[in-house]
């Protein structure tokens, strides 16, 4: 009863949040500011309030961070489950678990003081505050999420298969890549989706490292602004202005993204448990 009550309560909070966001975004639709918001230029003092550059920036950053973090995370998991020496497994896992506890602001500061100047001097293009700097930093942030999810799944599968595969004379690499990983598809997908969600939702790294220029980046060395950083930057503006209202549109988009991520996860989990029963 108590659990049901708290479940209903938290569901109501999410619904209330959604209602609140829609309520505050509604004036944008009715007053025709909608088309203003979905345009390509953010020049508030010229009456242009486009948040499309921020949407593009968010998507580019999340995808590029995942492109870096996902292969590395997968590699770490394979290393743990048989490709690396056994005595290194515990230290590596310890390190990854430890990484989950590091506050985001630490990554941001290290990036501002070390990574950004390094990129600026070695590339000799732009200020260093860029899509590249942010995606490198963000990939370190989402790495533990990816490793832990895939690892949890592999921990259930690998021990079950190992005796059989070794008896059949299948090599470790073949066992992992042809048998274990395909049967860990739920973990692989969940890691990708949850990692993406985490990358989209992060505020501080984007705000500190990405440069925050509201533009479509031409190269990875250009500055970008994400939706989350945009909210953080404009939240202190005049609360009666269109600048301020754009905040709710950005919030609504972020909320819908994370909701989609969660629904997808739920769907995958259900499917995987169904397959687990039939197998």
């Amino acid at each position, binding site marked *: 009863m108590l659990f049901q009550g708290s479940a209903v309560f938290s569901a109501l909070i999410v619904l209330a949040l959604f209602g609140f966001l829609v309520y505050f975004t509604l004036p944008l639709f009715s007053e025709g500011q909608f088309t203003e918001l979905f345009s390509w*230029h*953010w*020049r*508030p*003092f010229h009456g242009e309030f486009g948040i499309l550059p921020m949407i593009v920036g968010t998507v580019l950053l999340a995808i590029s961070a995942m492109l870096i973090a996902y292969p590395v995370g997968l590699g770490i998991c394979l290393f743990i489950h048989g490709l690396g020496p056994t005595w290194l497994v515990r230290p590596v896992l310890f390190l990854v678990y430890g990484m989950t506890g590091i506050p985001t602001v630490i990554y941001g500061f290290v990036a*501002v*003081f070390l990574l*950004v*100047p390094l990129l*600026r001097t070695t590339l000799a293009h*732009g*200020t*260093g*505050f860029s899509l590249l700097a942010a995606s490198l930093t963000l990939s370190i942030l989402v790495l533990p999420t990816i490793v832990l999810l895939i690892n949890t799944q592999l921990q259930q599968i690998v021990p079950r298969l190992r005796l059989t595969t070794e008896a059949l004379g299948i090599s470790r690499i073949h066992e992992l890549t042809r048998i274990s990983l395909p049967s860990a598809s739920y973990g692989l997908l969940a890691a990708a989706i949850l990692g993406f969600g985490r990358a989209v939702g992060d505020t501080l790294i984007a*705000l*500190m490292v990405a*440069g*925050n*220029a*509201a*533009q479509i980046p031409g190269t990875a060395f*250009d*500055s970008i*602004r994400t939706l989350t950083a945009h909210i*953080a*930057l*404009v*939240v*202190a*503006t*005049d*609360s*009666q*202005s269109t*600048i*301020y209202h754009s905040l709710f549109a950005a919030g609504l988009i972020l909320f819908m993204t994370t909701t989609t991520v969660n629904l997808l996860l739920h769907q995958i989990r259900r499917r995987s448990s169904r397959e687990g029963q039939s197998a």
Partner: protein
Amino acid sequence: MRSRLLSGLCLAIFLTFFSSLPAVSEELNQFANLQGEIDIAGGTAHIPVMKDAARKIMTQYPHINITVAGGGSGVGIQKVGEGLVGIGNAGRPVSSKELSQYPQMISFPFAVDGVAPIVNPVNKIDNLSSAQIKDIFSGGISNWKDVGGDDAAIHIYSRDEASGTRSVFWKKCLSRGDIVESANIVPSNGAMKIAVSRDHYALGYMSIGHLDETVKAVVLDNVAPTQENAINGLYPVIRKLFMNTNGAPKPLVNAFINYISGADGAASITSHGYIPLK
């Protein structure tokens, strides 16, 4: 690591708290028969001055409790308008839209702050005209060699639209001109200082109160951006700092505003790099 930082911070707060104990002035007497709470929020430039005053008042009169929070100018006006705080600070005047939303709003200017263009100390540029700065910020000039410096791209750093610092720089130095979309945006005066102090080819702008040796203030149209030049009117890129109340201030809030506007407040304002309004 974190806890050590925290305890260091506590110690620092503790020390500043008690080192100021002996300094009791007559201006504090106006609080003698008052008690209650004042919540203050808003502009971040105001915080050092507000905290100084709050500490002195609360030390002398423990029945008075004053809290100081940031949030930015827009937040300050919104909070005081909605009655959430007693004083809402802003680094810009209340806009006409805000005034129509909160018609009772009263503004109390108490200090002047200058905004200076800044470069990295290794940059050999010392002097720029406002025309040159306008050209750079609008994208017409993109290399330091075009204004007499090294052959290197100019890295422009600007502030977000909520910033009072940006607002005054944009109005009085850029004459409401364009700022290129590719300019990096930093969220505070502190972040601006970090960014410019570590980038040899940076150009940014920041509050005179925040200037130190890690960045170099550029002489604008042959006028150095100093407190003296801001006081005697030679340096044009200045703004007022405001305290706002919703309707006429209550006795305690009124006493606080009087205190900030008095001699004690003026000393504190000067010590933090701002200029008291007479």
